[in-house]
C-alpha cells in the first residue's frame, strides 16, 4: 500500500450538521488512479464525507467542520483556498441524475462556458471527447441539440459523468450514482468507471456491497460517522478484521 500516491488525506475531520455530529475524527488516505468505495448503512455519513471533498457542504449554512483535508498536500479548508478552482479539479456526480433543462450539448458545455471558454471549435471538440469517454457519444451523436430530459435515466447519468469530465477534473466523486438505475444501466456505468480510473481518481459512495466489490480497489466501511475499517477491497471482503464490518458485508445488518 505504500507505493500508492496519496491524493486526498483526511486528518481528524469532524463534521456537524445543526449541532448534531455526523462525522467523528475521520483520518484516511485516498490514493490516486484508484476507485475507492465508501460503504455503510443509510445515514452513516458516507455522502457527507464525500461532500467534504469538494466543499459541497459549504452550501449548508448550519454545518460546521474541523480538522484538515489535504488535496495534493494542500489543506482545502484553509482560508486562501478558492472553492471555485477546487471544484474544477474535483468533479461530482449525484445520486439522482440531474441534467440541466437544456440541450445535451449545452449540458456538457456548461462547465466550459462558466470558465469563459468561448472558442466554438474547442467546445465542440471537448463535448465530443467527453461524451465519447462517457460511452454516450454513439447513442446520441445525431441529437446533440435534443433536450437532455429526453434521455433515459442511465443515459442521463452518463451525461452527468460527461459533463463532469468536460472540465477535466483530477478526481470524480460519485454519490450513489446507480441507485436510481436498472441493472443494465448500472453495468454500463461500472465499466465506464473502470476505464476512467486510468486517468482519474474515483471516489464512489454506494450502499450496494456487490457494486463496491466489483469495481473498487479500496473500500472504507463507515458506521455512525466513524471509519470502522479501511483496506483493499479484496482484503476487506475476504477477511474483514472488524466484526462490525463482517456483519455488514455478510448482510447480517444494514
Amino acid at each position: 500500500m505504500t507505493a500508492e500516491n496519496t491524493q486526498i488525506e483526511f486528518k481528524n475531520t469532524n463534521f456537524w450538521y445543526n449541532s448534531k455530529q455526523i462525522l467523528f475524527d475521520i483520518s484516511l488516505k485516498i490514493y490516486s488512479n484508484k476507485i475507492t468505495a465508501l460503504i455503510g448503512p443509510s445515514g452513516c455519513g458516507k455522502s457527507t464525507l464525500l461532500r467534504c471533498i469538494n466543499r459541497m457542504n459549504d452550501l449548508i449554512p448550519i454545518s460546521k467542520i474541523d480538522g484538515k483535508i489535504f488535496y495534493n498536500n494542500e489543506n482545502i479548508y484553509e482560508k486562501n483556498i478558492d472553492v471555485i478552482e477546487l471544484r474544477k479539479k474535483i468533479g461530482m456526480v449525484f445520486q439522482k441524475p440531474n441534467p440541466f433543462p437544456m440541450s445535451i450539448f449545452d449540458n456538457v458545455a456548461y462547465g466550459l462556458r462558466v470558465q469563459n471558454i468561448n472558442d466554438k471549435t474547442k467546445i465542440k471538440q471537448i463535448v465530443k471527447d467527453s461524451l465519447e469517454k462517457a460511452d454516450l457519444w454513439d447513442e446520441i451523436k445525431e441529437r446533440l441539440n435534443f433536450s437532455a430530459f429526453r434521455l433515459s435515466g442511465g443515459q442521463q447519468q452518463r451525461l452527468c459523468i460527461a459533463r463532469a469530465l468536460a472540465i477535466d477534473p483530477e478526481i470524480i466523486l460519485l454519490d450513489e450514482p446507480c441507485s436510481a438505475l436498472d441493472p443494465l444501466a448500472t453495468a454500463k456505468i461500472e465499466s465506464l468507471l473502470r476505464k476512467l480510473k486510468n486517468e482519474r481518481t474515483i471516489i464512489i459512495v454506494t450502499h450496494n456491497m456487490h457494486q463496491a466489490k466489483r469495481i473498487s480497489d479500496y473500500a472504507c466501511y463507515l458506521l455512525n460517522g466513524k471509519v470502522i475499517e479501511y483496506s483493499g477491497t479484496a482484503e476487506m471482503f475476504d477477511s474483514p478484521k472488524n466484526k462490525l464490518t463482517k456483519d455488514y458485508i455478510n448482510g447480517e445488518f444494514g
Partner: protein
Amino acid sequence: MVNEHVRQNIYFISFRIATFLSVVFLLFILLYTLKEGIGVIDIKFLTSMWFHRNITRGGIFPAIIGTIFLAIGVSIISIPIGICTAIYLNEYAKENLLTRTIKLAIRNLAGVPSIVYGIFGLSFFVLFLKLGGSLISASLTLGCMTLPWIITTSEEALKSVPLSFREGSYALGATKWQTVRKNVLPYSFSGMLTGSILGISRAMGETAPIIMVGATFFMGYLPTSPFDKFMALPYHLFILATQHSSPNAREYALGTALVLVALIFMLNLGVFVLRYKLRKKKEW
C-alpha cells in the same frame, strides 16, 4: 358506519358546488358589466376627450391613457426592484433571524390595505418629497403597494427551481452568480413575470390610494410629464357611479368598467402568450 364511497361522494360533490359557485359569480360579474356597459362603447367613447357638461358628447380617452401611463410607471418602479429583492433574499441572503423577519414583514406588507399606502404616499411622496399630486407620486405609491406582491411571487418562482440544478452547477465550478444567471433565472423568469403582471393588474384597478396622490376626475388635457395630474379609469368610474348627476352616468360607469376589465384582460393575455412561449424551455 358510513360507506367510504358515500363519504367520498359527499366530499367531491361539495367541492363541485364550490367550484360551480365561483364560476357563476365570476361569469355574472363579467356578463353584467358586458350587457350594461357595451351600449356606450363606440369609437368616440374610446378616443375623445372627456366632455364635462354633457357626458354623452365626450369619451374616456384621457382616463385610458392615465391608467396606461400609471401601469407603465408602476412597472418601471416595482418590477426591477421586486425581482432583484427576491433574488437577493432567496439566493444570497443567509438564512437567519434577520432574513426571516424581513421575509415575514414583506408578506405582511402584501396584506396592508391600499388606502394605507395612499395615506403614506400622500404624506411622503406628495408632501414631504414635494412631488405633488402627480403621475409620479401615484406610480411610486402603487409601486410600493405592488412591491411585496412581486417579491413574494418571484421568491416562489425561484424556489420552484430544483436544488439539484444549483448543486450540479456549483459542482462544475460555477460561481453563485453564474449559477443564478444561467441555471436558475431562465427557469423562473415566466413565474416572475406572471406574478409581476398580476401585481400590476391589481394596481391598475386601485381607486382609493390614487385619489390621494394625484388622480383627478376632470382634466382638459393629457398628462405630458410625470409631474402632471392624471385621469384614471377606476376613479372615473367611481365618480360616475356615485357623484355624477347625469341620467346616463350609471351606463357610462359600466362602460368604463368594461374598458378597465378589457385592458387588464389584454395585459394578462399578453403574459399568457409570452409564458406559453417560455414554457417550451421548461421541461422538468
